[in-house]
């Protein structure tokens, strides 16, 4: 059930605010046990284990980097082979046209360049950034999310969404405040 963007009102989700990362972690795990799936945690720095706690896994970035790395080495070496062997062969002191050792540095740098750019671009693409507007920014106090507060949001689209249960889970695990967040 997607949100109708022509209607600017409507409930996006319920957001709990926490003071400590440990509380956020416990709350996320408890919420997962209650069966909530469309949820996300927000924190000023990466917290290890939180992905497992909210049940999130994604390995597309490493695979992208691997594929682009292979693409980089292929393109780099092919370019060298094409220029030095096929299109513009030059006999220098009887050395082989396909001089493998001499071709390694450039092919290698091409690999790194492709892989590194694909890592950064892949991160942006899969994260759907840049994104100027997101409903979570409407949450009360959310500007502290990049400073010293930790948030857990359960979206209203979650099939198991039940405001009372979510609020209870969050409060039990030390949420300072639980507030509704609109589109």
């Amino acid at each position, binding site marked *: 059930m997607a949100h109708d963007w022509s209607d600017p009102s409507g409930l996006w989700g319920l957001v709990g605010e926490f003071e400590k990362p440990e509380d956020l972690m416990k709350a996320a795990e408890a919420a997962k046990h209650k069966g909530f799936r469309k949820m996300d945690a927000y924190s000023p720095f*990466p917290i290890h284990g939180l992905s497992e706690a909210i049940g999130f896994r994604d390995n597309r970035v490493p695979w992208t980097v691997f594929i682009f790395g292979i693409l980089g080495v292929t393109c780099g070496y092919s370019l060298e082979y094409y220029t030095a062997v096929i299109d513009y062969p*030059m006999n220098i002191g009887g050395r082989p046209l396909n001089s493998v050792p001499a071709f390694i540095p450039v092919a290698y740098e091409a690999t790194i360049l492709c892989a*590194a750019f694909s890592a950064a671009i892949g991160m942006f693409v899969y994260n759907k950034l840049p994104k100027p507007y997101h409903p979570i920014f409407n949450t009360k106090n959310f500007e502290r999310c990049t400073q010293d507060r930790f948030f857990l949001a359960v979206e209203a689209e979650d099939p198991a969404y039940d405001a009372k249960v979510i609020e209870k889970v969050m409060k039990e695990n030390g949420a300072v405040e639980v507030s509704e967040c609109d589109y």
Partner: protein
Amino acid sequence: MAKVQERKLNDLLITGDQTYSSIDSSVDRLILNQKLHGKGWNMLFAIGIMLTGLLGLSIFWLLYQGIGIWGNNVPSAWGFDIINFVWWIGIGHAGTLISAILLLMRQQWRNSINRFAEAMTIFAVMCAGLYPILHTGRPWNAYWLFPYPNILAMWPQFRSPLMWDVAAVSTYFSVSAVFWFVGLIPDFATLRDKSTNKYGKVIFATLAMGWRGSNQHWHRYEQMYLLLAGLSTPLVLSVHSIVSFDFAISIVPGWNVTVFPPYFVAGAVFAGFAMVMTWGIPLRKWYNLKHLITDRHIDWMCKITLATGLIVFYGYLLEIFYSWYSGNFYEFKLLMKTRFTGPYAPMYWLLIFCNGIAPQVFWSQKARRNETLIMVVCFLISVGMWLERFVIIPMSLTNNYLPSSDKMYYPSFWDVAMFAGTMGLFITLMMLFIRFLPVINIFEVKDLFYKMGGKKEIVEEVGASK
């Protein structure tokens, strides 16, 4: 427990009574409170701008007159241009080393020094990059170095170390810039949320690209960051190895040695760490950042400088050894007639003093705690690393196989002006960076703070009972 008791508070990576928000404000006040930057900043910025002007002037004069304005001559076709290129690119290496290799090794202490070390890398590579382009004499044709289909049906010669150089340096710059920028994004988000100024909010919101600290984003972000580190680690080693191939692939006495790649890489790290400390020590003092860049950071950086300095010194000893052991007459002549004695000998002995002897003070813990002494040694190291490239380039070129090569190399006014100019560019960019971007990686320091939360309490309790 005994060990913990001996540990002093200033030995920790984050000292004092900190919270997440105090870490925030100690870094972002440099940007959000512009009144903090006083006379010192203005003075250094003015010096930087003036020298950058000199750089512009010398580039203009170079383009107008040609390479003849430099001191390069026939045996010594490489002079200040290549010396300074190698020097600058070496300085950049500590930044990538800190951000990549230490990240892979899970060395948490890198967190508070990596940001300005990376900035230093980028600015140093910018300074370095000017030289190879300008020393061609016809920089408007620099694009010939890139492989593109053209009407002459010619391609670059990929067997040449100079082409490897182009690939290595441009890749290095691009990857470092990407690494640096993605590292800044979460900090831009912090600045966006903390700035009260309308323009600041708009600028930082644009740069943060809607970063909201979502866990799913962090998940991919960390994967990317680790991969970038893994890719940059061999990159940083390859760049200076390839720079050393510019020399080592030749047959010039004093250049044609297999030890060059590791010796150059160690020298680069050595020079880079010296430069990180040269900036880091005043920075933490003037801007009250001693609780984030602590004595322990300085101590460990001194140790790395000492270790890489010993590798470099081993390289010098090896150069002496192989010129004797190889039985090559020209190698031995170079050593005896140009390095140990002769008109350039003072430069060689000064190099041995600066790079071989001066860093040995870091064996003593007292010296590693003495900021003035560290600054002096770091300055000597910077001079020494420059001298090393001087020893390699003009000394070998003015003494090789033919008597016709026996000619001196003297830099001209414009050589010196351009070198001072690149320093000005570096200073200007660093000053702007200190004023407008977070000098310390805020989110990584918070992460470190979270991870060492437990340890801090123990030490404080022990300290209190004393």
